[in-house]
């Protein structure tokens, strides 16, 4: 059944991909365009990148984002890995229920999470800061890591753990000497996924960010509302390079952990 695609299929696929990529390619190209926006192509320049690097608020947003997404990722991986290993090791009543409960934050619209957390922080008199952003991000990133690590654990042959025990490992050593080393790819790919989700979030962050804690996404959103600026093109291009690189690493890690478990 798998044969060469017909010309109509090829045409459709090409059109689809061109439309998908044209806006992005154009944005990248315009970041090197030596003209204020909306004026067509007028030569190559790195001017916007220089301006971007000089902009204090952009720099601050980058630092904020690294702090927020970094902390959220680390916390999410740790909490998610702990829970995933607990799920793998122990049986108890209501396990399935708890399992589906853990996934709910990923399907609930990000914006609802934002407004409800805002209300919670308000009633608890917690002032909005980087901490509140991190709390919010961990809430929806943790299930992503949990899921990633659980999938890896499900594919993991239980007799390998028994073999470790048989050869003299205590329960704790089974985890540290056998499970964890084999979970590294899943934790990394889960972490990267969490990092990208955290980095790109606007809908939740919008509500829970303190006035001084503008993340990168919030910064871009603010600039976008004001209209188009070539420096934003430059910033976008840099971000695209970063996320695509992270994405490719993530894909490779995932493939590797799948190949390993087979």
């Amino acid at each position, binding site marked *: *059944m*798998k044969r*060469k*695609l017909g010309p109509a*299929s090829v045409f*459709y*696929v090409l059109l*689809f*991909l061109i439309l*998908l990529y*044209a*806006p*992005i390619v*154009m*944005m990248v190209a*315009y970041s090197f365009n030596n003209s204020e*926006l909306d*004026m067509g192509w007028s030569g190559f320049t790195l001017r916007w990148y220089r301006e971007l690097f000089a902009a204090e608020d952009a720099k601050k947003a980058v630092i904020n984002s690294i702090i927020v997404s970094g902390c959220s990722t680390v916390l999410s991986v740790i*909490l*998610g890995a*702990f*829970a995933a290993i*607990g*799920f793998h*090791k122990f049986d*108890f009543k209501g396990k399935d229920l*708890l399992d589906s*409960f*853990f996934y709910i*934050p990923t399907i*609930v*619209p*990000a*914006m*609802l*999470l934002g*407004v*409800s957390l805002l*209300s*919670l922080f308000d009633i608890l008199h917690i002032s909005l800061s980087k901490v509140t952003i991190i709390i919010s991000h*961990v*809430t929806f990133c*943790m299930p992503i890591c949990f899921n990633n690590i659980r999938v890896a654990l499900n594919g993991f042959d239980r007799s390998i753990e028994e073999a470790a025990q048989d050869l003299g490992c205590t329960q704790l050593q089974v985890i540290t000497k056998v499970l964890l080393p084999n979970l590294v790819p899943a934790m990394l790919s889960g972490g990267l996924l969490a990092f*990208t989700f955290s980095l*790109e979030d*606007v*809908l939740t962050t*919008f*509500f829970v960010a303190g006035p001084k804690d503008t993340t990168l*996404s919030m910064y871009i*959103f603010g600039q*976008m*509302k004001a209209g*188009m600026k070539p420096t934003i*093109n430059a910033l*976008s291009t840099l971000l*695209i390079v970063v*996320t695509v690189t992270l*994405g490719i690493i993530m*894909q490779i890690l995932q493939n590797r952990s799948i190949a390993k478990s087979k």
Partner: protein
Amino acid sequence: MDKEKGKTKRKKGVLGNAFLTIGPMALWTVLFFVFPFIYIILVSFCSRDQFGNIVYSFSLDAYKTLTKAVYLQVIGRTLKMAAIVTVLVTLIAYPYAYICSKASKKVQSLLIIGVMIPFWINSLLRIYAIMNFTSKNGLINNFLMGMGIIKEPIQILYTTGAVYFGLVYSLLPMMVMPLYSCLEKIDPAVLEAGRDLGCSSRQLFLKVIFPLSIPGIMGGLVLVFVPAMFNFYIADALGGGKTIIIGNLISSQFSTAKNWPLGAALSVVVMLISTVLIFVKNKIEKARTYS
């Protein structure tokens, strides 16, 4: 007797360890997910004073306000928009996912990565790219003028059309992925059996392939419809603030308008809509999964 004791002891140890490992995540989820949601439901049944402070006494004011024509209009418009976007996304994504599933393994992975890469890129950036793309001097206007279809650049950005375009554009991968993974799983032998029993290509698609791909469509449906209702920054950035959807409305109640009970009530309404949608999706998926 002794043995019994040993056993209960061991069981306690297991429960303790289970709590140590799973407890932190469970506590976190309860504290920062369950509590806030319960609280927001409570807030929706409160009212507010003239300074925007919440008055903690039972009231249906917020829900009564919702039945005003203005709000009903916004809800109606949002649902209509999300529905149209979902249909458009499905129509555009289906052929792509179908062609992917038919291609050789190598081409398949290339085509899928082709959809995945834009998905990795921050959705804000993609919207920003669309702003560029649809602006007066953007690629679309240049293309249309180059083809001689229009003489003057037309206004695309800051219209409802641009909002639709942005929503469809950014939600496409959400439909391609579940559809593809569903179509790809169809056993080629089933298609050959269909052929063997006398199906034409058209019949094969309508009677075999399409019914088998319904779980994929349902999976994509939720991933497209729900974000389409909320994504206020697409409406803001591409619609120029002229297109108001539920997302904008909620966001403004919690920020500028300072009417939290109303925002909470709106949230509860969309939460219900999303829940119903997910419920229906799960029902159909369950009924349609044949493995």
